């Protein structure tokens, strides 16, 4: 067993265990922490698959930003409101298990049937990554894929506007209406015509 395989067989079970822990934990904070374990193991997989740049991005963006956002919202909504694990709809959970299992089997079959390229030249990424993985990514990203890159920026504008509009409810309109209802503010009157 090579070092690569050893690392894979150590981290893959941990990743799967993290995923299962997330699915089964009642407490939202625990679930989020299990997800962090899982995401970290996935980052290690990227390293194993010769994608060091993505390894860094995965840890910075997921562990550093996305999971913090999750934890922040969970705390905001209250930690004690855990999920209860009762059956949500009659028969939905067995159905979910069957669907998920069928999906794994289906993919396994397809993978066995469809691997035609696994016998490719084993020289690795050396040619592509000749002066660093980050530089190789940048070369593709800012030449062939610059349009998708710009579309991503559009996506982030939408997300920023959306988060602002939805989470930051209008202070102005609502408070004014409420103040009027409470009698703290007189309803707007017609202004006297100025001479």
């Amino acid at each position, binding site marked *: 067993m090579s070092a*690569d395989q050893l690392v*894979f067989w150590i981290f*893959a079970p941990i990743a*799967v265990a993290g*995923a299962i822990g*997330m*699915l089964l934990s009642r407490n*939202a904070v625990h*679930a*989020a922490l299990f*997800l962090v374990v899982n995401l970290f193991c*996935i980052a290690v*997989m*990227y390293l194993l*698959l010769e*994608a060091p*740049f*993505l390894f860094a*991005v*995965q840890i910075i963006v*997921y562990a550093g*930003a*996305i999971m913090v*956002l*999750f934890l922040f*919202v*969970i705390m*905001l*909504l209250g930690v004690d409101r855990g*999920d209860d694990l009762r059956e*949500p*709809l009659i028969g939905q959970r067995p159905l979910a298990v069957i669907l998920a*299992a069928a*999906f*794994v089997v289906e*993919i*396994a079959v397809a*993978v*066995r049937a469809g691997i035609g*390229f696994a016998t*490719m030249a*084993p020289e690795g*990424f050396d*040619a*592509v*990554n000749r002066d660093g993985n980050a530089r*190789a990514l940048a*070369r*593709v*990203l800012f030449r062939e*894929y610059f349009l998708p890159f710009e579309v*991503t920026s559009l*996506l*982030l504008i939408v*997300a920023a506007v*959306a*988060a602002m509009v*939805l*989470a930051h*409810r209008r202070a102005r309109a609502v408070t004014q209406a409420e103040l009027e209802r409470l009698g703290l503010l007189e309803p707007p009157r017609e202004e006297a015509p100025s001479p």
Partner: protein
Amino acid sequence: MVRLPLVLLFSAVLFSAGVYGVLARRNAVMVLMAIELMLNAVNVNLVAFATALRDVVGQVFALFVIAVAAAEVGIGLAIVILLYRTRESINVDEVNLLRW
């Protein structure tokens, strides 16, 4: 070198775990986490294919997926907060997720 089918199977297991989570959890934040798990499973797939094909495009794609996931989480959590303000619950089935 880890064999490609093994990695693909690993990602399929993670994806299926995500599918199970979306179908079985009731709390909207938990469902969102399960969706994140699914997106990460896809990313593992993309990076594995990139390695097998000696093609860096798969890694670029994974980078886009991470950006999309961040945007999705931002909007999803904003909607959750919005809903929490209008009614004190974020359990999905109280939101009538499934009805005719």
